[in-house]
């Protein structure tokens, strides 16, 4: 239900923000340059440019959904939250002889992450004391307890009552509503019920927002980000974790390219090399690098060498195939022209084949960098002592969801930055790509 609701909300945001943006920011919807003069744009892919207002609203929407599902302090509209404050319910005890008495249970609901908060003096928060209540008249006495948000408590009401289950007393109603053991019902404050043995239970209402354990609020993640940068986690700061991961990717990728590109050229240029490497490449290429991790750990241990070997293998096949297709992509007329202009074999290689294959090699490098980045994180998840993947997997063992989210955001941001960087490098080094 909630899923469908969120989906509808998201779809609504997509179309709603379009309507609003079109009214408020009509300038962002105007076509630029030559596209302005085109009367036909629907179906003309080349005339479609990303609407930057949409990108901004899209990111804001994701952020807002994040906030809306947490108990964040950020003043944005949020989904109904969990119950907080004092909740109470009354229970009715019936003795064996049929006499009844009511008593009230007061439940103080406190935030589930109280121990992770700090007060003004910098002391960590503590579980509050139960509210003070009068015991009240009759043989059933009033109770007072605490329960955490998103929590659940079996309320042993008998402990201060003058009667007990042993002498045949039982609870017949809660809030005046008759109830049997094993049943439960919803009140405005939460869910009350009886256990199979007839003891009341209480779970405060949760609403749609998620507990910190499941989805920490953005400011909690930000605080954790700052903390990770200053104090670190598992003995390394976030920057060090990132640096180790990046370093492995770069070394692995560069080694893979340094070995793979010459092999790819050789496969494109000589029949012996093609025959020699073809079975190896075609066999190894479909094996996901992650499937090699166990073997790599057995052979090289969990240290740096194992990771670099894994990333080398992840990049190697991609770069071999990229270089090989770069060679086969050379128009034969270019090679003929170069020979007719007096070029030697080595000059053909250096002046024609290598530059002509650069666009293909760049495409391969972009793919390889992406695969390497994904592989390093996965490899660190399995075994490592430092690195972003290691940080995430250790944090997950201690249920530190905020660290996991920091890690995921950093991994995504770096992956994005790698792609943007590679594209910029490509535009700079092979400006003729796609223009012939």
């Amino acid at each position, binding site marked *: 239900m909630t899923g469908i609701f969120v989906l509808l909300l998201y779809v609504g945001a997509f179309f709603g923000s379009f309507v609003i943006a079109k009214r408020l920011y009509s300038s962002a919807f105007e076509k630029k340059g030559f596209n302005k003069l085109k009367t036909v744009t629907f179906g003309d892919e080349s005339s479609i440019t990303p609407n930057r207002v949409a990108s901004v609203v899209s990111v804001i929407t994701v952020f807002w959904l994040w906030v809306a599902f947490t108990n964040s302090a950020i003043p944005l509209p949020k989904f109904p939250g969990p119950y907080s404050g004092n909740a109470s319910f009354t229970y009715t005890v019936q003795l064996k002889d049929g006499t009844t008495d009511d008593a009230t249970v007061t439940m103080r609901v406190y935030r589930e992450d109280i121990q992770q908060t700090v007060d003004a003096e910098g002391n960590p928060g503590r579980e509050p004391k139960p509210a003070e209540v009068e015991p009240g008249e009759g043989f059933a006495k009033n109770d007072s307890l605490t329960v955490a948000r998103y929590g659940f408590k079996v309320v042993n009401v008998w402990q201060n009552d003058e009667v007990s289950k042993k002498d045949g007393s039982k609870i017949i109603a809660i809030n005046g509503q008759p109830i049997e053991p094993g049943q439960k019902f919803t009140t405005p404050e939460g869910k009350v019920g009886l256990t199979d043995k007839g003891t009341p239970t209480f779970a405060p209402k949760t609403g749609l927002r998620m507990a910190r354990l499941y989805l920490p609020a953005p400011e909690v993640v930000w605080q954790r980000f700052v903390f990770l940068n200053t104090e670190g986690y598992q003995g390394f700061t976030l920057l060090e974790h990132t640096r180790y991961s990046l370093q492995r990717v770069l070394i692995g990728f560069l080694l893979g390219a340094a070995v793979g590109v010459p092999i790819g050229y050789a496969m494109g240029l000589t029949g012996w090399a093609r025959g020699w490497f073809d079975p190896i490449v075609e066999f190894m290429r479909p094996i996901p690098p992650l499937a090699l991790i166990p073997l790599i750990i057995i052979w090289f241990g969990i240290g740096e060498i194992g990771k670099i070997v894994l990333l080398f293998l992840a990049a190697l096949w991609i770069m071999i195939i990229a270089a090989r297709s770069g060679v086969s992509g050379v*128009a034969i*007329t*270019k090679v*003929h*022209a*170069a*020979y*007719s*202009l*007096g*070029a*030697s074999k080595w*000059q053909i290689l250096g*002046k*024609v084949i290598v*530059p*002509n294959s*650069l666009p293909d090699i760049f495409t391969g490098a972009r793919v390889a960098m992406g695969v390497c980045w994904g592989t390093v994180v996965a490899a660190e998840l399995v075994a490592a002592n430092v690195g972003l993947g290691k940080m995430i997997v250790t944090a997950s063992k201690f249920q530190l969801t905020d660290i996991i989210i920091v890690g995921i955001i950093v991994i995504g941001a770096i992956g994005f930055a790698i792609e943007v960087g590679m594209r910029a490098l490509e535009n700079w080094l*092979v*400006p*003729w790509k796609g*223009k*012939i």
Partner: protein
Amino acid sequence: MSGLQIDNISMRFELPNGGHVQALQNVSLDIKSGELMSVLGPSGCGKTTLLNIVAGFLAPTEGQIILNGSKVVGPSPERGMVFQQGALFEWMNVRDNVSFGPDMKGVSRAESKEKVDHLLDVVGLGDFREKAIYELSGGMQQRVALARCLANDPDVILMDEPLGALDALTREKMQSLVLDLWKETGKTIILITHSVEEALLLGERLLVMAPRPGRVHKEYHLPFADLGVGADLREVKKHQDYNSTREEILEMIWNMEEEIMGRTEESA
């Protein structure tokens, strides 16, 4: 012995199914130094194969090519090539493309600069020296290809439908350019074309080839190339013999095409 001798060339391609194609059969030609010869024929007549053999990219199954007294065994800078398109190096600018030949020979840039600049002026690209190849139009790219070939100072220039991908107006301008360059440099030029008009205008010697097996069908010696040097090609086309020769060749090629069609139908 100077000039280019095509000595009894035959070319036979073995097919994977055991059959074979006789692309050329006993082709013999004697091309004088400085001659401008155009080669015309229906598709499949082996004219591109012949050019590739002369260039040294293919070895004939029989016969030999002799240039200036020595046998052709492979590609060499003495036989320059101009292709239809796509043979320029996109990773180099116009100047670097043109000076590619001298660079390969180890001639320093300082030495080759004057020649390269002059050639770029001749082909009308003086203002485009530093441009990237992909910034040029198709006609300009073919001008670069001509200049690149000439920069190497070859004895023979082999042109494989060099103007085939150009629009009609650009093509006409380029035809004049080819004629002017021929007269100015005195190079031997073999030009393969699909266009009868182009073959008439750009050949003091015109070769019509016939297919299956590829062979020389008829040879013409024509005055139009000489008339066209430095002149308006549209005036040349008004020459009394131009139209009659054109009709004759068109008829000839038309008949060859019909014969091929008929033979295909028979075998089917």
